[in-house]
């Protein structure tokens, strides 16, 4: 568990940096009103950047003034369940690369059993049936019925 206090510090920092970056690029685009009315391109995003910086500061002040409250609020980020999610995230990053190379159908042949395995499924027959049914369903609905082109292997 991590306290909300720490999370809020990180969120404040990230929001402030993001807001400042938006403001920087917005200034380069031009901020302000045009002589004949209307606004410069950077005005609207500039307002958003400013709003992000402002809310980041408010969040920081609120967290600092209610340290006890936010210290007690716990965010589950280090539990075994979270670790499983992080492993799953790694699988998806790898899957994105695999999808580009193998295309959707072949990569799904790897992805579905992998997810099922990570979720604790050990019945191979069930894995094969779920994988086959999903791929067939996707093929029928998207390729045959809707005529959607899905990612193909690089050699096709």
């Amino acid at each position: 568990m991590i306290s909300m206090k720490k999370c809020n510090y990180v969120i404040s920092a990230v929001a402030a940096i993001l807001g400042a970056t938006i403001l920087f690029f917005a200034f380069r685009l031009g901020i302000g009103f045009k002589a004949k009315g209307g606004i410069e391109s950077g005005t609207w995003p500039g307002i958003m950047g400013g709003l992000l910086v402002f809310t980041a500061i408010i969040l920081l002040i609120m967290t600092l003034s209610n340290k006890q409250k936010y210290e007690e609020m716990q965010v589950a980020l280090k539990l075994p369940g979270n670790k499983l999610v992080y492993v799953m995230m790694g699988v998806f990053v790898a899957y994105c690369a695999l999808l580009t190379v193998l295309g959707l159908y072949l990569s799904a042949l790897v992805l579905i059993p992998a997810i099922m395995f990570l979720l604790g499924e050990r019945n191979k027959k069930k894995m094969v049936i779920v994988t086959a049914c999903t791929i067939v369903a996707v093929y029928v609905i998207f390729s045959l019925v809707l005529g959607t082109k899905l990612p193909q292997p690089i050699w096709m």
Partner: protein
Amino acid sequence: MWANIVTALGDAISPITLLLLLAGTGAGILIGAMPGLSVNMGIALLYPLTFAFDGVTGIIMLIGVYCGAIYGGSISAILLNTPGTPASAATTLDGYPMANKMGQPGRALGLSTMASTFGGVFSAICLMIFAPQLAKVALTFSKPEYFALALFGISIITSVSSGSVLKGVMGGAIGLFIGTIGIDAMTGSMRFVFGSTYLMGGISFIPILIGLFAFSQVLSSVESSYGEKFEKKNVKIKKVLPSLADIKRVFVTMLRSSVIGTFIGCIPGTGGDISSFICYDQAKKWAKAEDKEKFGNGEPKGIVACEAGNNSVSGGAMIPMLTLGIPGDGATAILLGALMVQGIAPGPLLFTNQPVQVYTIFIGLLLANLVMGLFGFSLIRVFSKVINVPKEILIPIIFVMTFVGTYSYNHSMMDVYVMVFFGFLGYFMNKTQFSMSSIILGIILGATAEQNFSGSLIMSSGSPIIFLTRPICLIFLLISLLSLLSPLYSPVLKRIFKKKEA
């Protein structure tokens, strides 16, 4: 007008539209019935299927998903004591005791189906009556009013951010910023493109939607499924049709809840969850003294109040969405985006420029609720089986659907990467009390707000006084301000009212 209605009826009952409506409603009920899958997730997941169809055909399917999922949530609420969607949380109070303590799951599901259908149909009729009238009033609106309306829509971020309002505003600002990426429609200049061809057209709304509402939610399901032991639940459902005695007993409650639900739906930022609890509370207050004690122990009025209340939100929420372009809740925010993608711009002009589409949506909503009732009464035994689908089967299927759905929109791998990125981000944002709906609201309403803000200033030759000299604009700006500041004054008001009650 009648010619438009006849054409719309023809469109709404065409074989393809009907087939999609049936599929959407059925899928919606299944999604709603599975704990962990929300209404928003259902719409986001099935959204890509609509790209293959022009106009409102696909939208009607999404409306089916919307109505079906709200109703479907009651199935697991009654049978498992676990609401399938937040809107059905109040249904557990009397639904579960009736199904378990009293051993009448069929009666509970029948009452829930009847009330859901009644509430949905009632709100659809209200939509048909009130939306055109409101649109007529809104026809006088110009750029300053549209800007004020968009700002009002954005201000409901404070209501949809249940965890932290400040983080809701942050999310809204991020959404509004994302909406500015790409070519500026007013000046034609490139903003935040950094030489990328992909960014020139702006970041598409669909990958972000699927990432935030579907992918991140399934990641949360992965977390909650860790160490969870699957237990199969066998439920025998007998006699689903409500008896005449039950109908007589609950009719007034059902009607009252439908009125309340439709009204609550009209208020942007509310939703089925708030409506069902208010309707439950009202049903209890209006009940006879001897019936009041039965609430919480399987009282039929308790079930119908919640279900009529949450389903009648659907039509109510569509009134501001279609007439003013302001979504009533998270689900209608997604529907609003879906309409925009199909080239249908919600707002007062929609009723003048695309009347056939409007009437098709009206008829579609009415049919979706009727189909939902038909499915509920005839196939409830089949739908109740989905509560037994283990997560290790469900989760991989949804993950694959998110990838397929995202890619099928633009046939772009970049969209897939964006979806995965926002999915990961959404997972952490959910944990730290951010609201996903506020980001989506920012993306959807950002362009409208900016363009009308700039347009208003052109109208007034650069004078911002224009926003204060137009009464309707000023009223909406004041409401927006009140809405944005509500987290500051509402605790004070609550304290004052509590003191008065004491």
